């Protein structure tokens, strides 16, 4: 048996300043670098499958003869702009659910982070920026493919992407708040089936909400996705379409989305602080 000498451990004398939210973002990007392959299907292929299946296939039934879903707009373009916003919602929600529960409950990542000079708001801020980057990439790729397929065209698409990101955050932040409160995975099943799924179907992604009964149409306007969709359509389909918005319209929709995003952020910070007991 040979004796081993423990190596000396030097203890820091000066206190480091703390990495701030940037170091939290760096953590999530490092995690993403490891798992990004697993997200290709849900982030990139699934929305394209919907675009092809609904836009092209169903579109051929809808756009027959003189008839189109919405006057002057091919169904494919209608669905593409809707899916742009819907995809932002899905990605935003996705990044604000299991990764957050994992960091709080399973891997104790947040506990470890808070043992350093990082503050609760750094954790939330880092996550918002990370979610925004994730939303931007998925929506960006979707937009490029839509252009390649001829579903969308013009510089307006760029504006639509920006609005979609805002819409994504309008979901990610309130859901982040929810994640700080929820105790078990069952909470996510409920969220996905009772909230996200109905919003996906009834916020004007696949058909104009004017087709809905009046009370349901009114309810659909509560959904941030309806507003995000109105913005992406106004930007991408341009002034020639029935979706055109004036400046006031733009501001109103943007303000509504900001309300959800900022409100969700503020509640998220508070909820995480009380959850982590700090």
């Amino acid at each position, binding site marked *: *048996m*040979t*004796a*081993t000498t423990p190596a000396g451990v030097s203890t820091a004398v000066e206190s480091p300043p703390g990495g701030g939210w940037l170091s939290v973002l760096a953590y999530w990007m490092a995690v993403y670098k490891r798992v990004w392959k697993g997200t290709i299907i849900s982030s990139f292929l699934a929305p394209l499958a919907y675009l092809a299946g609904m836009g092209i296939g169903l579109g051929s039934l809808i756009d027959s003869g003189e008839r189109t879903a919405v006057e002057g707009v091919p169904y494919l373009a209608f669905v593409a702009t809707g899916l742009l916003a819907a995809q932002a919602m899905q990605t935003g929600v996705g990044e604000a659910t299991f990764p957050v529960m994992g960091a709080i409950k399973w891997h104790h990542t947040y506990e470890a982070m808070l043992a350093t000079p990082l503050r609760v708001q750094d954790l939330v801020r880092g996550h918002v920026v990370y979610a925004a980057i994730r939303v931007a990439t998925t929506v960006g790729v979707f937009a490029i493919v839509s252009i390649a397929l001829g579903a969308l065209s013009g510089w307006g698409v760029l504006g639509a992407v920006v609005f979609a990101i805002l819409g994504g955050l309008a979901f990610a932040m309130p859901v982040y708040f929810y994640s700080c409160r929820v105790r078990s995975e069952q909470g996510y099943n409920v969220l996905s089936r009772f909230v996200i799924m109905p919003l996906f179907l009834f916020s004007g992604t696949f058909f104009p909400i004017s087709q809905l009964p009046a009370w349901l149409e009114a309810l659909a306007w509560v959904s941030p996705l309806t507003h995000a969709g109105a913005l992406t359509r106004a930007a991408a389909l341009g002034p020639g379409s029935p979706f055109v918005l004036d400046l006031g319209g733009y501001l109103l929709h943007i303000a509504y989305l900001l309300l959800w995003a900022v409100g969700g952020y503020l509640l998220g910070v508070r909820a995480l602080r009380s959850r982590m007991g700090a």
Partner: protein
Amino acid sequence: MIKAVGLRKSFGDFTAVDGIDVEVAPGESFGFLGPNGAGKTSTMKIIGCTSPASGGTIRILGMDPASQASKIKARLGVVPQEDALDADLTVFENLLVYGRYFGLPRATVRARAEELLEFAQLVDKRDEIVEKLSGGMKRRLTIARGLINTPQIVLLDEPTTGLDPQARHILWDRLFRLKREGVTLVLTTHYMDEAEQLCDRLVVMDKGRIVAEGSPRALIAEHASREVLELRFDVADHAERAADVEGIGARVEVLADRLLLYVENGDVALEQVTARGVHPMSSLVRRASLEDVFLRLTGRSLIE
């Protein structure tokens, strides 16, 4: 109860169990002692009929696992290393559902489960989801679960690993009761104190082989001295001080942080050390244990 001859288990090129002979008598409490990777768990899985042997023969309750696995399993109680409790169920439901896996009638299982809750001291946790239990409670529940079919042999793989001292003592007390009721216990452990407490007879395993066999007391008598004197010095490498105490007692072992002197009388030996002008930073006299037996037999510590 169990008889194995030349038992082997290999996974590809790696041999986990390398030809061991074991015999366990009815009512006996039998232990496999050894460090992680010695082949204890592999042996337990063969006995539990969830892993076929690669060679040799084994009979459990007179039956061959290769052909009568279900019949053997019906009479075994298994307490796996990782509890593998059903996290979706309550404490009581864990017992109930497991009993149903044996095809036992619901009423029988219910009655037995109530009894076992009592035995495992979990009556007030009856309707809790298992996630909320402490480590010691989970372990007791796992043992209770393994007893649901009133087994003739209970297999316990590392029964107290990871538990705090108090939880371990409660658990040992429960296992003692089983032993008194005449249940045959077969357990693995890498804790010496556990083996000394629980086993009538044990085998020491190392690298898939049996290196010694006997009762804990007999093994200590045979492979160690009566007492051990532990010396600590303020040096980085204790090997440099070994020569200073050479010849006092039967043997000197050099560990990373201390020297072990195998002696008949520790206090006398300490006087001899001081008489040589050697002054350790601290010293301790204790009785020899299975740890010393293992060190002697393999040249390595059990917990590495």
